[in-house]
C-alpha cells in the first residue's frame, strides 16, 4: 500500500542529493581546475543492498544506486581549467527543484488518498 510512497520518497532523496552536488559546482565557480559533477539515477536496478559488515548485523534497507559523472556539457573551460558554467548549473538547479516540488506534491496527494480511505471516506 505504501510502496508507491516509498518510491516517491526515493525520488525526493535523489533530487535532494543531486541539489547538494550541484550546489558544490556553484560554490566552485572560481576554483582552478574544477570540473562540474552531476548525479544520475543509474540505469538498471535502482537499488543496491546495503552492505552488511558483520554476520550478526541485520541488513538495512536497500539504498538507491546513483551514477556520478563529470558533466561540463561540452563547455570550454577557462584558462585556469575550470569548466563550470554558471547558467547551466543554475538551470539544472531550478529544474531539479521543480522535480522535487512535483514529487513532494505527488507524495502529498497520495497520502491524502490513503487518509481518505482510512478515514472511512470522511
Amino acid at each position: 500500500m505504501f510502496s508507491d510512497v516509498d518510491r516517491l520518497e526515493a525520488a525526493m532523496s535523489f533530487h535532494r542529493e543531486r541539489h547538494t552536488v550541484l550546489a558544490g559546482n556553484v560554490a566552485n565557480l572560481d576554483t582552478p581546475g574544477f570540473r562540474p559533477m552531476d548525479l544520475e539515477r543509474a540505469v538498471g536496478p535502482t537499488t543496491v543492498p546495503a552492505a552488511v559488515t558483520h554476520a550478526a548485523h541485520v541488513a538495512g534497507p536497500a539504498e538507491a544506486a546513483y551514477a556520478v559523472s563529470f558533466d561540463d556539457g561540452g563547455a570550454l573551460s577557462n584558462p585556469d581549467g575550470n569548466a563550470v558554467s554558471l547558467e547551466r548549473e543554475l538551470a539544472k538547479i531550478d529544474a531539479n527543484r521543480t522535480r522535487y516540488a512535483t514529487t513532494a506534491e505527488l507524495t502529498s496527494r497520495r497520502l491524502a488518498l490513503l487518509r481518505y480511505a482510512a478515514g472511512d471516506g470522511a
Partner: protein
Amino acid sequence: MPLDFFSAMEVSASGLAAQRVRMNVSASNLANVSTTQAAGGGPYQRRDVVLTSVPMANLPGQRLGPGAPGGVVQGVAVAQIVPDAGEPRWEYDPGHPNADADGYVAYPNVNPVEEMVDMITASRAYEAGVTTLTTAVNMAERALGIGRG
C-alpha cells in the same frame, strides 16, 4: 549518511565565504592603490586569492555506479592569499619621500580596472550562491508541507 539539506546549505555557505574573501581582498587592493610604503618596505603588492575545492560530504561508495569518483560533494575553501610579485608602477615624482635616486616612485602593481572586474565577478558568484542556498531552503520547506492539507 545520506546527504541532507544541511549539507547543501554548508556547501553553499562555503562558496559564499570564499567569495566574501575575494571581495575583501579586492577592496584591500583598491584601497592600497597608492600605498608606496607597505609593511616590510617597498610599495604594496596586490593580493590574489587562490581557491581550492574540499570534499565536504560523501555519498557512500556503494551507492555510486562503478568507476565513480569519490568525494562527490565539493565545497570550496581559500587555499591561500598570495602577494603578486609583479613589477611596480614607476612614476616620476622627485619630490616624493619614497622617490629613488633617479626621482622615480614605485607605486603598487594594482590595476583598478582589474580589481573592479574581480569584484563584479565575486559579487555575481555570491548571488549565485545565495540563489542555490535559497533553493535548498525552499525544497526543505516543500518537504515539510507534505501531508499538510
